[in-house]
């Protein structure tokens, strides 16, 4: 029984953390911009709220509709969601890099208010996708686990679920704290790298589904096997792979996608636009 409770804590924490990583980093970033981003935070939290609603609806649909939707349609939906989220994260990071340091001043001088306004929609969509994706699984898991429990077991299960979510909130709090304790530059670098790896992981998930749908060729069999070092079939390796895109036995197209992703991202990050490059303070 106790191992089951441990599972509940761990699964709720894990499902929440992936969504909270995105939300926490965006929120800390917005906080750092200071004045003028109150509305941006409203977009962020509206996205979270909408994501929760969509998560419950998705969970309900998955349980009740089950197999009435063809497998290919479900996969196409999953692939689209993860690829859109990956693209949004990359775009967000690049946009942060180009505007982050000057955003407050630009907002004060109303230079980029229109651009910022429309960018908040990206914040909204990203929060919605992150919460809906992880939340729908959590909803199914919780619904099923709680409905199977009974008597004192039920209370214990609810308690375990609450502990898992509290741990996730603590993780979120650490992120917020990081933004205050660490220098902005360090915090920015760390979270930027985390987000880019998360986007890589989403891209790899999307590529995997597209291979499965035979919309992309695998190109080769497995190129190498590092599952002796870190298997992506286990709990720890599974989390590493969900947060970084790691594959123990990659096929050709996966290696090309992973390497290509980092080449494109690093290239985009290394070529800031000249206006912001000159306007950026050196300190």
């Amino acid at each position: 029984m106790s191992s089951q409770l441990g599972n509940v804590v761990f699964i709720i924490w894990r499902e929440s953390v992936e969504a909270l990583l995105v939300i926490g980093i965006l929120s800390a970033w917005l906080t750092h911009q200071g004045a003028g981003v109150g509305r941006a935070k409203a977009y962020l939290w509206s996205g979270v709220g909408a994501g929760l609603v969509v998560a419950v609806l998705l969970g309900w649909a998955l349980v009740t509709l089950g197999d009435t939707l063809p497998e290919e349609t479900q996969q196409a939906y999953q692939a689209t969601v993860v690829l859109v989220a990956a693209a949004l994260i990359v775009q967000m990071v690049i946009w942060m890099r180009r505007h982050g340091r000057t955003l407050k001043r630009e907002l004060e001088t109303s230079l980029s208010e229109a651009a910022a306004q429309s960018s908040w929609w990206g914040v909204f969509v990203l929060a919605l996708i992150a919460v809906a994706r992880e939340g729908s699984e959590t909803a199914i898991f919780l619904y099923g686990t709680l409905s199977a429990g009974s008597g004192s077991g039920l209370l214990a299960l609810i308690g375990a679920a609450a502990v898992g979510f509290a741990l996730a909130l603590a993780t979120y709090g650490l992120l917020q704290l990081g933004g205050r304790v660490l220098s902005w530059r360090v915090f920015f670098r760390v979270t930027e790298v985390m987000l880019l790896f998360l986007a890589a992981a989403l891209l790899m998930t999307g590529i995997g589904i597209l291979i499965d749908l035979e919309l992309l060729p695998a190109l080769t069999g497995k190129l190498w096997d590092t599952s002796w070092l870190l298997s992506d079939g286990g709990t720890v390796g599974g989390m590493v792979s969900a947060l970084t895109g790691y594959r123990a036995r990659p096929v050709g197209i996966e290696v090309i996608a992973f390497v290509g992703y980092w080449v494109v991202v690093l290239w985009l990050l290394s070529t800031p636009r000249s206006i912001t490059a000159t306007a950026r303070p050196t300190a």
Partner: protein
Amino acid sequence: MALGSPALVSRLLAGFVAATLVVAATSVPARADDPVFRIEFSDGKMTPQRLDVPANTRFKLELVNSGTTPAEFESVELRKEKVIAPGVTTSMVIKNLDPGEYHFFDDFHLDTPPALLVAK
């Protein structure tokens, strides 16, 4: 370039709809002559723990959840992830596995040891 502008979002959504339509139009239903292998989930117990399947050919996995809690078939190696509600039978088609061993597990019951799909 404005991030996530309404134009971008609508383009992404249009892409989603197009992709869904393409897949729906080209999707091939599971063929009747695909060999079928059955895996049963029961509140953290997977049966069998080791399943021999043919390599380099299409086959169908029938996933049955006979327990009272939801299960999630998950395998990064197989690139598959599927939630199975209690009392539900679902299936997935697997195409062209290289010979080798593939771990899968019930992601909602982590204290269960992973099970193995062996493609020969």
